[in-house]
């Protein structure tokens, strides 16, 4: 598995396809562009020799929040066929390193309260469930902010 930085618009359709197929929350193209145009250096893709299109993606941002620089993992998706190979884990670690290089002091994200694989992944990397957000998602599910 190889990993590379997001390089531009040609990557966008593949990213949209990966995210749309795996995440419940629908995002318009403007949402993707919001992240990828402003923080292209914080988004990474995973490739395998078997597939010409990426099999995993992570999209992040960073901003100034209450006197500290905070990173945010907006989207993480790995193609179902390639799960349980540590791809998600690696994508998160790569993006965390990139955000740390940028001076980020803390990183947050949200995930569905019953998304056990995501919770397990992030908690193994040291994230904690800071708060619960009631009916955060359009499907009515609660979220944990990690």
């Amino acid at each position, binding site marked *: 598995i190889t990993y590379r930085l997001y390089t*531009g*618009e040609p990557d966008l359709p593949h990213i949209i396809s990966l995210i*749309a197929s795996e995440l419940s929350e*629908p*995002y*318009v*193209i*403007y*949402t993707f*562009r*919001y992240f990828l*145009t402003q923080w292209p250096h914080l988004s990474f893709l995973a490739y395998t020799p078997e597939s010409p299109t990426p099999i995993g993606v992570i999209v992040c*941002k960073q901003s100034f929040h209450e006197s500290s620089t905070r990173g945010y993992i907006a989207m993480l998706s790995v193609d179902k066929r390639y799960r349980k190979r540590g791809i998600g884990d690696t994508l998160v670690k790569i993006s965390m390193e990139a955000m740390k290089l940028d001076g980020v002091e803390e990183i947050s994200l949200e995930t569905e*309260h*019953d998304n*056990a694989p995501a919770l397990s992944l992030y*908690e193994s990397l*040291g994230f*904690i*469930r*800071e*708060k*619960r*957000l*009631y*009916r955060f998602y*359009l*499907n*009515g599910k*609660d979220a*944990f902010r990690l």
Partner: protein
Amino acid sequence: MEPGSMVAIDGFSLHDAMTAIEIGDPRLDTGMQLEAVERPEFDPLTPLLPEEICWIIDRSMAYETEWHASNQLAHTVFTLLYVHCLNDVDPDVLPIFSMLDLDSSRPLELITLVLRAYTSGLLKSCNLAWNELSRGSLLDAEDWHSDKSEVSLLEGWPVEAAVARLDSGLTWLSTTTKVPLLWQEALKFRLQFRRNILLLLNYTESLPRDLGVFDEILQSTRHCLSIIRAHPCRSITSSSPARAAFDPYIARRLNTFLPVRIIDLPSWEHTCDAYERLLNGWEDIARLSKTYQISTWNQVGFQQSWFSAPVARPAYIRSCAQTLFFDGMQVVHSQPQGWLVDRLFEETIGVTYTAFAQHWGGSGTVSLVELERRVIHTVIPHIRGLWNNPARRRRFLVKSILDWHMIYDTLCGLVESVDTINIDPVAFRTLNQFPKAIVLWRLASIREVILSGFQLELYHPLERPFAYWFVAEVIDIHLNYLDAVLKGMAGVVPHNSPSRKEIHYQHVFLVALQAMSMAMFMSLIRSFPPNTIFNQWEQLRTNLRRRYKWAFNSAYDDYDFEPVVLELDFTRFLREVQEVQGQEIMNNTELKDHAEKSSKSSSEYFELAQRLLQSLISTNNTGTLEGNWGHDRMRLLLGMSETCQELQSFFSGSSSDGDTSQILVSKLDWTRSFSNNIPKTPWFPSVRLHGQGGAEA
């Protein structure tokens, strides 16, 4: 512009990006329909069988409960197409020939009188609930959804007119020979149920006026619900024209910006359970409307979340409770805001605020106005906040911890300024009770913040021992303050006063809770591989500082008096972890003394808790809570007692089998996320039965 570049307005935010809609995107553009979906054509005047009308009503009831469960009207109630064509089934405007029954088993009155009346009542019911929610403090798009998509909820139509229409439907059903008796009764109960729901919604606004009538309607509604529950309408054939009465994709044709979402309709049992929760909520509201003890409001507010979180009770009921407590002008519909100040102290320490205020010239004087303002602006949001959804409630309680300290600081400053030479000792002792009263409320909030973390499934497994340990510490301090308050009451507050009674109950309950917490702390530490806490301390410490960041709030530096319970004593925690793990105790007198005092085993702690809980249960002691609230308290005590037994057997059995660590941990069920799985206690795990899944939550 280069490919891939973007122009955005200044301050273009994520919210702006996410609220944009791409025209033609079927996920978000509700008007976009990719494939032709064959839907049976809907003609509101298609004659239907009585059982088909019943089916439609039952389905619409399920959708109504889903709206109350914080879903959109466009995805629930409005999927009933009769909502959009009530005028088309108005018998007063239909041509005469269409009123002729071509099929005697499908009399048109079932639609023009019965279903029309029901649908009108349904819309009016939604209107009344909408009004309450929109003027309340619960959050749109979180606790409920206000979007009406420009569909009428019969806003300008009087409730009496809706009731009259339902009465006409009921009258026709009672006198007609066109409908078999079985279905007459089934439809009558449903119409009666709708009528009662409408009246309950209407009467809620004027509580406690007409309380007797309200109670009667509530009982009648319960009766109707029990009949309806026991006799659900059987499903109709797939080719029945009644199926055309619902369009889950109706949002495509309505003025709404949210994507279509197909709601999975709950089962009939779950629908009836949801209505029962509404009725139980109304019963609480009726009782609260004549409750003028803020301590009761406080306890009821805590209890209603203990038995339901992380799921929230119906937003409508929570909003009613908040509005009832404070509607923007008066407290509990009739009391001035200043009344709260007196109630707070009288109920907590048995002494009126006047006994304090007289030393500064009385209530409302320059010296006291800031204190009184702070009390009012803390108590009102505190009580109302207990009816937020559980996640928001916890965040609110965290913020209130500092607010309580501000009052405490002000009170301490005032007491300190008193001339101690010329004051009666009893009076001075009484004055010193006032800051303690505030400490009791603050400590209860801190305890709730810690314990609600279990209900909301926030804690990592390594955090749980600390949470139990810390709550035991907080309870220890709370007990000391209860003792001090009781001591201060001697000779001042009668022995049979409500405040004493409640303190006695709280004392026993808190010792039991503390014992269970210590037992869990010890048992969990022992379940980890040796030195786990120490090996992972760097990460754990960082997490705990984040988790309990309110305890490190620098805002406390602005106040003169030190807060009771603030910074966490990690050193002591680690020492106790060390002791529990049975490691060599350092040669330190203080430690040895401490070890001797805390030499109970986890089993002994569970036994102590059991004894104390049983002492309350066997004497039916629920403090000052009575009726259903007393039953709820008793239910908590019974649940804790059962949990005590269960966990004690579990941990004792496991340690004797040598069963430790991961196997042990995986058998404990910490999940709270299933609304139908009501745990015995809010804050302790249950033991998975043999064969159930063992994934660690």
